[in-house]
């Protein structure tokens, strides 16, 4: 019988199953840039804390306000960069930016991430500041792991590393800014370069 045709059929089935559930246009370069933003942000926060006058950083202090502004700027730049580079890559590979797969990717990424965001805000309300670094790392890591089912699997390892760093940061109090810079900064850059050389540079 027509074996060739059946083999092609199976290939087609695999391709459609992959394409309809996986969004492949996440950009490696944006990972590197996001990592750099995180490192610059961490350096700025370090500088702010070092130069803080007084024993404690209270919610009303200008130092706290500057830290929040820094975090906001880093977050904003990261989201815009990730979106822009992903848009460009999707256009280049003629994959739709907003399709069934990318919707699933975003929704499943956002569920743990927003949970972590709300949790962090509640911690601030309860005046438990020491855990924010760990909590953001852990929930971001879980968001990556959850999203990994809908894109290239590599992001799963990034997520696992963030979760481990988050737990370590809780185990070794007082160094949370360093763990944060390592997770969001250094490992984003490493991940971005790996993705770039593995998939983008062709």
């Amino acid at each position, binding site marked *: *019988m027509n074996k060739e045709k059946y*083999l092609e059929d*199976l290939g*087609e*089935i695999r391709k*459609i*199953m992959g394409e*309809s559930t996986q969004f492949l246009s996440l950009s490696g370069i944006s990972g590197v840039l996001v990592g750099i933003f995180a490192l610059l942000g961490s350096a700025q926060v370090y500088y702010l804390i070092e130069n803080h006058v007084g024993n404690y950083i209270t919610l009303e202090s200008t130092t706290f306000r500057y830290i929040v502004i820094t975090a906001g700027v880093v977050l904003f730049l990261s989201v815009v960069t990730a979106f822009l580079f992903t848009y460009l890559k999707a256009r280049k590979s003629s994959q*739709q930016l907003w*399709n069934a797969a990318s919707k699933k990717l975003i929704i499943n990424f956002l569920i743990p991430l927003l949970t972590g965001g709300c949790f962090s805000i509640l911690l601030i309300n309860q005046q438990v500041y020491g855990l924010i670094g760990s909590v953001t790392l852990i929930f971001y890591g879980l968001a990556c792991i959850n999203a990994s089912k809908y894109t290239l699997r590599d992001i799963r390892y990034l997520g696992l590393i963030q979760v481990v760093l988050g737990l370590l940061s809780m185990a070794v109090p007082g160094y949370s800014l360093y763990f944060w810079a390592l997770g969001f900064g250094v490992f984003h850059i490493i991940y971005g370069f790996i993705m770039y050389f593995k998939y983008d540079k062709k």
Partner: protein
Amino acid sequence: MKEILNSINKVFDHRIRLAIMSALMVNEFMDFSSLKELLGVTDGNLASHIKALESELFIEVEKQFIDKKPNTRYRVTKEGQVAFHKHIDALEKLINSK
């Protein structure tokens, strides 16, 4: 051999129908425009193949309104899943047989 050929489902013996089933097997549901975009086929072509699968009761249609716009989405039925698995098994056996 003949037995295997009998379990090759004639309904699936068409690339677009096979693709529709593949997409619906791994997605809880998909709407018309997403399917169209994924498979790169025309409205009429997609509609006729969907109708064929629907009349075999392999997929079911769900009509609803999102922001007052009609939205039609499809999901695979239990029968459809069983038939699709049988079809894949048969394809594998055919390929492995000498």
